């Protein structure tokens, strides 16, 4: 499968998925081609992608976007740390699942693994190539989404 087609479809599909899941019209920053990714210190969800290509979808979530999403979807503030972690993980699952639906509409068929949630600072290095973008509300960064290709 042509790499530029994969990147373009992944970029558009995953951004649409973020908007659909968060149910807000947030802006997308400029996309970047990357070969590593550093997690910023908040919650980060990692989902395996299998199918027409093999890779990973990585979503760095700020506390702000977790709070906003919980309020938008369920009208509630989550205070329990365990429930915040469970919701953050589910939020990443929703973004990944919706991204797969968008990509399927574009001709790329993928399945996903259950998300792994990380907290703190870490680096993903050595993946073949990836595309990454930030999502903003005005000047406030809400999340960073990376799709990496393996091999």
């Amino acid at each position, binding site marked *: 499968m042509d790499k530029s087609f994969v990147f373009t479809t992944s970029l558009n599909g995953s951004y649409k998925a973020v908007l659909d899941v968060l149910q807000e019209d947030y802006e997308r920053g400029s996309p970047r081609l990357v070969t590593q990714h550093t997690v910023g210190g908040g919650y980060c969800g990692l989902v395996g992608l299998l199918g027409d290509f093999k890779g990973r979808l990585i979503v760095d979530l700020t506390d702000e976007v977790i709070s906003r999403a919980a309020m938008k979807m369920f009208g509630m503030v989550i205070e329990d740390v365990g429930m915040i972690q*469970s919701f953050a*993980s589910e939020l990443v699952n*929703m*973004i990944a699942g919706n991204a797969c*639906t968008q990509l*399927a*509409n574009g001709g790329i068929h993928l399945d996903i693994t*259950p998300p792994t949630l990380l907290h703190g600072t870490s680096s993903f290095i050595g993946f073949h190539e990836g595309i990454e973008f930030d999502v903003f509300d005005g000047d406030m960064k809400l999340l960073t989404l990376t799709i990496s290709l393996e091999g």
Partner: protein
Amino acid sequence: MARVLVVDDAAFMRMMLTDILVKGGHEVVGDAENGKVAIESYKSLKPDMVTMDITMPEMDGLEALKAIIELDSEAKIVMCSAMGQQSMVLDAVKSGAKDFIVKPFDKDKILATVSKVVG
């Protein structure tokens, strides 16, 4: 009122679905965090219906759906997943799912689907 088994690997989603169902007048008779536990819970609890996530560790929701339908061809199972592509929905419906709800969902959609499926 329906007796419902809630299956989702995320504790938060099990809690929210339970809250929506109970406030809607239904009884949540049990919950399960993966497909394997769901099958055992279905055998012991014999619920009126099941809400079933798809992407879960140990055993995914599609496998669990097929296993439960083998045990009970009349089982009423509603898939509740972030994966909403046509092929996934078709696979679930062909395997015996009564409906398919794409996450994120709202409580009206959940309650309307339960009413439709349970009757």
